[in-house]
Every structure is written in structure tokens, then in C-alpha cells.
């Protein structure tokens, strides 16, 4: 059963796309991640042009993050003020990112940069997560309690000027690192089609020392708006958002996520993190291999037109 993707300009098997969306949705529900960093590489493996995969991935992120963001908003676990500062940085970052995206596309280096960013990011995040979770599992086996650094500890970030009081998070923090973090995530959203939660959450906890209770909700708040903004900007500058592909992915994704959540609740935290780390590493390695092995054809042709 094939469906024609009007923007990607190719016919795909709808069952494969549904399966992909459901699998990533399941994993994202299980691990509590947006899934953008899995869906975009999977689409690229399935020969969807990277330009379309990235922009469409951002659209899928909106769908997978919105319900979580609403839940956190109802529970009051979003620091709107902090989220807004992150968002301001994020919107500037996404704008610059889409501009970079168009520039790289024009000079023919976009596919390479997307793959390289994924290899570097997935490799390092996956490696760190695996290291950390194996350590935690060892300690759990020895029945030791893991020593955790207190959020009250200060580092150089807390010495920066332009401080602002964030009541909900009960912290007094400079807006510079917050906006910078948002900015960096915004660039990643527009170039890689990820929400960026897998970088933002650890950065907020370990670097900015924001209380864990508001971290997930606040990062989801920023992700929803930045990815929505990215979709609109990508659609209007690069015309690369494939609504048919996105819709099939999000339908399967949101259903898969519901089941993933249930399974995730039965697994232990460090086991879950080790599994996620292995998955992240596997995707990164697969992309790295693609860069190293000789391509089928060293030549490629792109047409400037959108006549199809």
C-alpha cells in the first residue's frame, strides 16, 4: 500500500511509515523523549530527502510534545517566565538555523552537515548516557546510594550579570545562559528536526541547577513553540514540510506513545536509560557508516525548480 508524498516527491509504503511512527512514538513514550532525534534519521535511512526529513521531523515533534506540555501546564510544573526566556533565545536560534539550512542547501553541504551533527550529538549523548547508567546500575547492584550533587551548588554560570528572579523555580539566575541554551536548541531544532529535550533537560539540571520538578515541563513548553515556529519558517522559506508524511507519522506516533508510557512505568530508571543510550548510539553509528562507505553514485543532480 503506497502513498505519494507530495513534497518529498516519492512514493512510500504507508505501512512502513506507520510502523516507524508507532515505534518511535512507543520509545518516546517509554523514555519520555520527543523522538525527533530518532524519527529524522529513520526517515533518512528510508531515502526521504534529508531536507524534507528535518522539516517534517520538527512537525512531528510538535504533535508528540504538545500533550506533555499541556499536562505539565495543568499540574503547574512549567516556569512560564523561565520558559519565555528560553523561548526568546530559541526563536532567534531557529531563525538563524533556518537561514543556515537554506545556505547549506544552496552550497550542497546540507545532507553532510545534518549527518555529521547527528553522528557527533548522538555519539556523545549516547556514550555519556550509557556510561552514567552503567555506573548507576553497578552502584545499585552494590546497594550503594548514588551521591547526587545538590542543585544549590554554584558554578561560574551563576556569576554572570543580568540576573532575574524565577519565582516558580525558586532561583535567581542570569538570563544570558538561559537564552543561550534556548538559542543553541533552536538552531538544532531547525537544522536537525529535533526538539532538543535530550540536551536541554540535562543542561538545565546540571548546568543551570534548575529544580528537576519544573525542568521537563519548561523544556516541553519551549520545544512546542520553537518547533511550531520552525515548521512555519521551514514551510515558508524552504517548502520542505511534507504534511502527508507528518500526519501519518504523528497519528502512529501519538498512539505508540500511549503504550510506550505504560511499558516505561514498569522498567527501572537506569535500565531504561541504558536501553535508550544503546538505541541512540546505534542510530549514530549507522549514520557514521553511511558517511564512510563509498556512495553508489558519486554524482548527484538537483534541479532549482519546484515544478513537480
Amino acid at each position, binding site marked *: 500500500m503506497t502513498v505519494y508524498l*507530495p513534497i518529498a516527491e516519492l512514493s512510500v509504503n504507508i505501512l512502513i511509515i506507520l510502523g516507524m511512527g508507532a515505534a518511535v512514538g512507543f520509545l518516546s513514550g517509554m523514555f519520555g523523549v520527543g523522538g525527533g532525534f530518532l524519527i529524522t534519521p529513520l526517515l533518512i535511512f528510508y531515502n526521504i530527502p534529508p531536507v524534507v526529513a528535518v522539516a517534517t521531523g520538527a512537525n512531528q515533534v510538535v504533535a508528540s510534545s504538545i500533550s506533555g506540555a499541556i499536562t505539565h501546564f495543568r499540574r503547574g510544573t512549567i516556569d512560564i517566565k523561565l520558559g519565555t526566556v528560553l523561548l526568546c533565545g530559541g526563536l532567534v536560534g531557529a531563525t538563524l538555523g533556518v537561514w543556515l539550512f537554506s545556505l547549506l542547501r544552496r552550497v550542497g553541504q546540507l545532507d553532510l552537515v545534518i549527518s555529521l551533527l547527528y553522528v557527533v550529538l548522538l555519539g556523545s549523548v549516547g556514550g555519556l548516557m550509557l556510561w552514567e547508567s552503567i555506573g548507576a546500575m553497578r552502584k545499585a547492584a552494590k546497594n550503594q546510594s548514588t551521591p547526587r550533587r545538590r542543585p544549590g551548588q554554584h558554578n561560574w554560570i551563576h556569576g554572570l550579570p543580568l540576573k532575574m528572579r524565577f519565582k516558580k523555580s525558586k532561583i535567581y539566575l542570569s538570563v544570558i545562559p538561559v537564552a543561550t541554551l534556548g538559542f543553541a536548541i533552536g538552531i538544532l531544532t531547525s537544522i536537525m528536526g529535533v526538539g532538543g529535550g535530550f540536551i536541554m533537560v540535562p543542561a538545565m539540571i546540571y548546568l543551570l541547577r534548575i529544580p528537576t520538578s519544573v525542568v521537563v515541563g519548561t523544556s516541553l513548553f519551549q520545544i512546542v513553540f520553537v518547533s*511550531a515556529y520552525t515548521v512555519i519558517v521551514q514551510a515558508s*522559506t524552504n517548502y520542505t514540510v511534507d504534511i*502527508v508524511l507528518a500526519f501519518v507519522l504523528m497519528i502512529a506516533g*501519538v498512539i505508540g506513545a500511549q503504550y510506550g508510557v505504560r511499558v516505561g512505568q514498569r522498567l527501572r530508571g537506569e535500565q531504561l536509560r541504558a536501553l535508550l543510550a544503546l538505541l541512540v548510539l546505534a542510530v549514530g553509528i549507522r549514520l557514521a557508516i553511511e558517511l564512510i562507505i563509498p*556512495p553508489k553514485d558519486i*554524482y*548527484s543532480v538537483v534541479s532549482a525548480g519546484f*515544478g*513537480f
Partner: protein
Amino acid sequence: MFDLARLCLVSLVLALAAPAAAQVQEDLSEFTEKLEIGISTDEISITSDFRGADLTIFGAIDGFDENLLAQGKYSIIVTLEGPKENATVRRKERVFGIWVNTRSMTFELVPESYSLSSTHDIETIAPPGELGNMGIGVDHMRLVPLGFVGDGSNLGEFRNAFRRIRETSGVYQRDPGGVRFISSSLFRASVRLPANVPNGVHIVRAYLFRDGLFVAAKALPLTVVKTGLEQAITRAAHDQPVVYGLFAVLLAVITGWGASLLFRKE
């Protein structure tokens, strides 16, 4: 699927009388022969599940020489040329172990699709120089690089790669034998519309050769319009990109929110 029969010209005279056939006459005075061609419509709408079809063009040679015709000295080439766009060819090379696009060349206004039919292999119809001058055939198509190309030493390799890729993907096709005489001077040509035929104004061209010499040519425009939901989406994405983007986001919000409401009730 469009009705193939509708494309076929039943009466040559009818099509020639049609005002839509904005014909370009390029005949030379030294020859008495004239070429006339016709297609039944100047616009075809095809649905998105279109998997390619043949377009039939009828034509006639007027003022021909009986003896030459009897000897089979007349040859006909019919081409269907898609809308023109700049196309960039890129070449990958290994840099520090990874494959990177290092060199590129952009060819100015090349057709997005090109189908050729002829009475026999075009290389036997006219000398390569003649075909090259007129730009007939994939191998003789004008590929003019845009901008600075250095000493031009790699022009050939980029041109060959371009032709090879376009032919492999099926947008450039040739059919030696696709033009047949149905009576002494009346011929029927079928050119292939590829599955991914681009939207826009295509040009049907017919060339008449006599014993290796170019005699006359004729051109007719043909507008290809794709219809259906997918085409509507493509058009919306390009004509109303902001609205399209907003709609994509709205769809995501409804799907995400809807699913969470739906599953909470269970």
C-alpha cells in the same frame, strides 16, 4: 488516468485548424517540403497516481518528392521537451575518510524532462555536428555551465554524469522507432510522458530530415497540469507557504492534544 484516445488526433485537418496550435514555422526556402503536426489538445490534466503514458502526435510531410519518399530518404524526429530549469551536478570525494560534495557545476536552463522518438536511430539520421547544432537528442542537448568553470577540463565528466542520471531516472528517454509512417507521407509518433512528468509548458517539436539534411521543423506547446489531492498540497505549499505551515502546526496540535484527551477517557 487521462484518456489516451483523446490525445490521439483522429483528423489531422481538425487539429491544424485549432487556434491553440501556436505553430512555429522554421522552413528553409531551398526545400519544398513542409512539415505539419498536430495533437488533439494543448493541455492535459493527469492525476497523481499517473504512472507514465504515451502521447501520440500525428503529422504529415507536404510537398515531398515522390522518389525520395519511395526510397525512404525522409526521416523524422519528434521530441517532447519539459519546462527548463537550472540543474546542479555535484561530485563527491573522500575527505578525511568521509564522502563530501566537493565540486559542482550548474547547467543553465536544461529541460526537466525530455523524450525523443524517431524513425530510426538519430545518429543515422543526421551527422553529429548537425544534431549538436540543433541540440537534438540527449547526447547533443546544450549543456551550458553557469558561472566560472576553470579550464573546463571536467566539463565533459559533469555533462556525462548529468545525462546518465537523468536517463537512469527515466525523465530523459529515447525511442528509435517510435515514429512510424502510416501512409506514404502521414506519420504517427509516440513520445513517452514519464511517471514524474513535471508540471508546466512542454514543447512538442518535430524535425524533418532528407537524406541527412535538415529540412523543416515544427513546434507545438503542450501544458501539463497535475490534478488531485497531492497536487493541491504541493500548490498550497508553494503558493501559500505561511498558511500551509500554520496548518501543519495546527494539525500537529490537534493530533497531539486529541490523542491525549482520547486516551485519558479510556
